[in-house]
């Protein structure tokens, strides 16, 4: 216990949800209300009235983070992630419990906190640095690196109000990236800027993470959490429901989601298309029969029942495969493989076969997509998910280490001896 970088014990945070009076309809009414209300409002502001509902944004959360660990905090909106970070960053106080942080602390809850639009880039570097907790000498030491990183060059002495939003964000992140804390609390900062800069930020985060700092990282970007963090905390409605390895945490986060209690394919209404054809059911089949878990390298078969209004012509079917994080792995499509169906009976089952499934261990989802006569007929996102466990794909009894690629492919190595040329 004694040496954890972050030690959180039974921390809770309660908010009072203000009961907002119904909107006044007219100015006159509002005026009368306002004049008659000071006493009532005084009471409300003092928190003495019991009108407001109490609500635990965070409840009885305990965990520890060891020095050098990079821990992701995941959870839905309103699960308490930001509240937790704000408590640890000392911005807001907990209602219960205590937390101990050992080491120099810096928090990055927003990019560009304290930037002043009227000040120049140069001035804002100093101001923002100081607000984030840097000493003047430190800022001066990193000044050139910050300017380089932000790529603002000759705009250094222009007020930041004239900056493009991209430049603004780059400068703000550049300052933050040069903080040298022992403990870094980061909230969603990667959700800004263009894709290229996001990559750069992610790279910087990775450097920070691998330089032995303790990082607590809140993000909706699950791929970033997976890529950066060694451990993850899952918050659900203010409670810590999982604390451990990243993969199971993500799994749990994702499976806790819509899957539970989801209507069957036939009943799903969140679909698009003119519905001249509807997918009504689907089954995953391994050679041994129906399943939802495959081995890598096993023959894969997906059966999709459909119903249509009469006989159809020119039917195109596509099934894209995704990881749980929403990353596209590959797409199967009649048009690129066997050609679209020229005619189709009103009822039947599409069958998709993939010999020797190349997917590595994990959980995957499929979408179902169908066009009739070039018009979208039915499109169901995340129609189903299935699992893959590591199988002996190569027949060698060996598989590449986890984390090296999403799929495996057949391949062969050989060599040719170089012939000395005369």
């Amino acid at each position, binding site marked *: 216990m004694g040496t954890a970088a972050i030690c959180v014990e039974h921390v809770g945070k309660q908010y*009072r949800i203000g009961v907002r009076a119904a909107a006044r309809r007219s100015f006159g009414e509002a005026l009368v209300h306002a004049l008659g209300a000071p006493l009532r409002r005084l009471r409300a502001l003092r928190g003495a009235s019991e009108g407001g509902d109490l609500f635990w944004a965070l409840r009885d959360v305990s965990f520890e983070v060891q020095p050098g660990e990079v821990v992701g905090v995941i959870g839905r909106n309103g699960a308490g992630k930001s509240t937790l970070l*704000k408590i640890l960053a000392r911005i*807001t106080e907990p*209602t*219960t419990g*205590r937390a101990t*942080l050992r080491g120099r602390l810096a928090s990055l*809850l927003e990019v560009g906190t304290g930037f002043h639009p009227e000040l120049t880039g140069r001035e804002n570097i100093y101001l923002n640095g100081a607000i984030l907790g840097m*000493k003047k000498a430190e800022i001066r030491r990193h000044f050139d690196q910050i300017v380089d990183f932000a790529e603002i060059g000759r705009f250094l002495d222009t007020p930041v109000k004239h900056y493009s939003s991209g430049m603004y964000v780059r400068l703000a992140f550049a300052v933050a990236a040069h903080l040298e804390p022992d403990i870094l609390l980061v909230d969603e900062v990667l959700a800004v800027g263009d894709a290229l800069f996001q990559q750069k930020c992610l790279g910087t985060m990775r450097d920070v993470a691998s330089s032995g700092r303790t990082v607590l990282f809140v993000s909706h970007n699950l791929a970033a959490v997976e890529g950066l963090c060694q451990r993850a905390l899952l918050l659900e409605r203010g409670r810590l429901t999982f604390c451990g390895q990243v993969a199971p945490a993500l799994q749990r986060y994702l499976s806790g989601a819509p899957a539970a209690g989801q209507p069957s394919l036939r009943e799903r209404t969140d679909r698009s298309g003119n519905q001249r054809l509807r997918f009504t059911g689907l089954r995953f089949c391994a050679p041994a029969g129906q399943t939802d878990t495959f081995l890598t390298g096993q023959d894969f078969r997906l059966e999709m029942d459909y119903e249509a209004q009469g006989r159809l012509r020119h039917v195109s079917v596509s099934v894209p495969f995704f990881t749980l994080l929403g990353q596209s792995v590959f797409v199967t499509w009649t048009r690129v493989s066997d050609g679209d169906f020229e005619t189709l009976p009103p009822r039947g089952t599409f069958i998709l076969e993939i010999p020797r499934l190349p997917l590595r261990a994990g959980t995957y989802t499929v979408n179902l997509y169908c066009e009739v006569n070039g018009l979208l007929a039915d499109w169901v996102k995340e129609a189903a998910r299935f699992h893959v466990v590591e199988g002996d794909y190569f027949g060698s009894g060996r598989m590449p280490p986890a984390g090296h690629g999403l799929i495996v492919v057949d391949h062969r190595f050989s060599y040719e001896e170089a012939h000395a040329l005369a």
Partner: protein
Amino acid sequence: MTGSGATFGAVGRSQAALPGGRAPVGQETVVIEAGAGRRWSAIASLKSQLRELWRFRELLYFFVWRDIKVRYKQTVIGAAWALLQPLCAMAIFSLIFGRFAKMPSDGVPYPVFVYAGLLPWTFLANAVSQASLSLVNQARLLTKVYFPRLFIPAATVGVGLVDFGLSFGVYVGLMLWYGHTPGISILLLPLLVVLTAMTALGCGVLLASITVVYRDFRIVVPFLVQVWLYLSPVVYPVTIIPEQYRWIMVLNPMTGIIAGFRAALLNRSPDWTALALATLLAAGILAVGVGYFRRTERRLADIA
């Protein structure tokens, strides 16, 4: 949240607070604890709070620097505004009260008399009005990053101090013009500036934290400052107040401070009793202001 609160307790290089007590020597440790803030401001935590302020001291400088920079960006005459404000006030007061109303001025030219009073008054009035709005205006900062919140209103007092320096330069010119040479009592000046700053800081932080909760004070504060002006002997000497009401005047720290300024600048012997009382009052205001602020501080991010 009724009643149960928390503060950011011990901050510093202490190991005593650690349950295990084996943190590396010299490492900063922060203990965040619910409920610690309910103790008004325990002496034990006062020390670590002061240490925290010291650790962030550069930030105070940056806030002052920012406010001054920003104020004069895109202005034509820039810092000259700091001089123009008291000069105009002096001109108007001299005309109305000095010339037309024939206000007595303790035997010195009225402009010199009134400017000597305007020096601390302008400092106080600007600092208090700016400070009271400072937290509301910078609410965003409060909800996004931690630093000693006291620095936000304190910075406005710092800005006031810089302005004071500039307008004091004008006063030196004024004295040369009227041929007044300062005497030994000018040595009181630093003390008087400190007293004014203490009063400004005390009122400023108090009103700043009240304004965050009760936004009415955005309207109330300018009015209060206006009233305070006439309750302080800025445009008139204390001597015009009937003897039996003087004690009320003395409850206002600015009475002693302004009288002190006049004594220091116009080479009179100061009223030591009034000065001692002003010192006590200024210290009291500062203590109450900062005390109240520290109590509200822990809730600021939730209500700002």
